[in-house]
């Protein structure tokens, strides 16, 4: 415990990221218990009211209580990020390990595909994908849509790491002892790359949150769920600026800034933890 604290003091980014995200999670977890999140849906409160005792964060133009929206929205947005990020790293890890251990044409196909797809701007392809699906996308659909491209970076990075590992002596040893490809991947490589996989999971979650909020701000998200991105969408669509509803503008911005900066700090802090070579650079 003391060692952990001492490490956190040295790695200020990790500490800062944990603090911001921990704060945000605590806010929504406590809110979930003590506040009525049913108020996050339209027509459950008076319309366009300034923050007051009854509605501490005010209400929006469709009668959603914004405190309830922030609580429910933070959780929904994190859910999308976690599902899409986990799927992305999962698929990416499989492809990366397979490409690195099997080599040859398998590797050429996988890394060729990843290279081409990485050059295509992700958000734009996701826009085509999300708009081609008829009907309302709920948060689970949104996570799946984002996962369709979220595996690209993990696949490339994990392949690169696995290629380095492949030449390590203990991997050669286990090959000489007759271990097959799968055994090398699961028994030898995976455990050694765990911190690295953790770091790339956080990076993937962070990227997925970024994409989902972006898609939602363009109106491609769920119209019946109060996510943070949809709050931005409604706020812009219904002209919160022109109508002077400052609280409706300010609150989602603040929550999203905390979320993005927190994820960014956590991600670069973990990178430093998983990739000690970076430590000398900073």
């Amino acid at each position: 415990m003391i060692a952990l604290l001492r490490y956190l003091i040295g790695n200020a980014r990790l500490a800062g990221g944990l603090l911001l995200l921990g704060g945000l999670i605590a806010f929504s977890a406590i809110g979930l218990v003590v506040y009525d999140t049913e108020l996050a849906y339209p027509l459950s409160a008076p319309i366009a009211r300034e923050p007051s005792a009854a509605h501490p964060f005010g209400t929006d133009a469709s009668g959603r209580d914004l405190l309830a929206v922030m609580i429910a929205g933070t959780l929904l947005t994190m859910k999308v990020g976690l599902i899409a990020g986990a799927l992305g790293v999962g698929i990416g890890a499989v492809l990366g390990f397979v490409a690195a251990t099997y080599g040859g044409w398998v590797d050429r196909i996988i890394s060729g595909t990843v290279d081409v797809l990485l050059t295509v701007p992700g958000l734009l392809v996701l826009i085509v994908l999300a708009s081609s699906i008829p009907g309302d996308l709920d948060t689970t659909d949104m996570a799946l849509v984002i996962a369709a491209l979220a595996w690209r970076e993990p696949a490339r990075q994990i392949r690169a790491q696995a290629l380095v590992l492949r030449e390590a002596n203990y991997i050669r040893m286990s090959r000489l002892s007759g271990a097959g490809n799968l055994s090398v991947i699961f028994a030898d490589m995976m455990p050694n790359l765990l911190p690295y996989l953790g770091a790339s999971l956080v990076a993937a979650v962070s990227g997925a949150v970024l994409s989902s909020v972006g898609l939602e701000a363009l109106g491609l998200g769920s119209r019946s769920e109060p996510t943070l991105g949809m709050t931005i969408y409604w706020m812009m669509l219904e002209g919160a600026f022109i109508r002077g509803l400052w609280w409706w503008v300010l609150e989602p911005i603040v929550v999203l800034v905390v979320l993005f900066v927190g994820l960014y700090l956590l991600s670069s802090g973990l990178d430093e933890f998983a990739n000690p070579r970076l430590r000398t650079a900073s």
Partner: protein
Amino acid sequence: MILSRLLRRLPMLLAVVVTAATLNFALPKLAPKNPVETKLLEMAEQGGSLTDISGLIRSYEERFGLDQPVIVQYFSYLKGLATFDLGYSLAFYPTRVADLILKALPWTIGLLLTSTLIAFVIGLLFGALIAWNRAPRLARVIAPGVMALAALPYYLLGLALTYVFAFIWQIFPLGGGYSLMALPSWSWAFALDVFYHSLLPALSIVLASIGTWALTTRGLMVTVQGEDYMVYAEANGLSERRRFLHYGLRNVMLPQVTALALHLGHIAAGAVLVERVFNYPGVGMLLFRAIEQSDYFVIYGVVYIVVLMIAIAMLIVDLIYPLLDPRIRAEARQ
């Protein structure tokens, strides 16, 4: 030499563009209900008040040759794209998608080109400066703040800037490409108006991307500072300014130019949302309107054109790279 580089890069460019085109072609077909057909049916049901729907449906069927096998449809689609035949807008029927994009493109290119270049130059200088041993104290103090901005998407920063400078202080307009009263013309007054309206959107892109460039440049500069030629330059008594600019920054610039090429997609995607926030009349706003109206041909057209532009921009960056790196020129001469 440029020709051989071009030839080497061309297959990748083609692969990227064809992938984007293929996704545009395949995704609506893979969806459980073809969204384009659903939209057309919907419009036909609304009937009379709208424009000539039957003409639209006929042109849709002709264009995709829907009675042909899928593979024939696919190749005629690719042929159409190669000649920039992007079809018609569903929402404004007789208008061609290509015309809509052509009208919006100058706004986006103008905004993106200037803000990206400014951010790149400032970010490089700033990042190199904070890695430099004798950096000004001010640079060190503001560094963490600038880095934190890198975590934010452009549009979020755009919203925050709008809140402060257009909503509370009202020194900048809330949005738009020019004032409602102004008539587009080639006059100084109009140019000034356009410039004034572009400042906040450009600032949000610049501020958010400076951090990204500064962060990577700092890492590179730390490595460069440890090189022997830096020690040698100092031993020769070269001025600090010369060592910083000609020995440090010059070497850091090369990998960063490559990074710029790889980042273009990111920047373009981010700009789409910035244009939405500021109601800026570029392709991002066009895309947003098209999404609102389920105007599929405009959506597909914009995405295809943006992917194409990015691929071409990457190619251009790649071709000017030899101009920056004398080693590649020397290699080519041998």
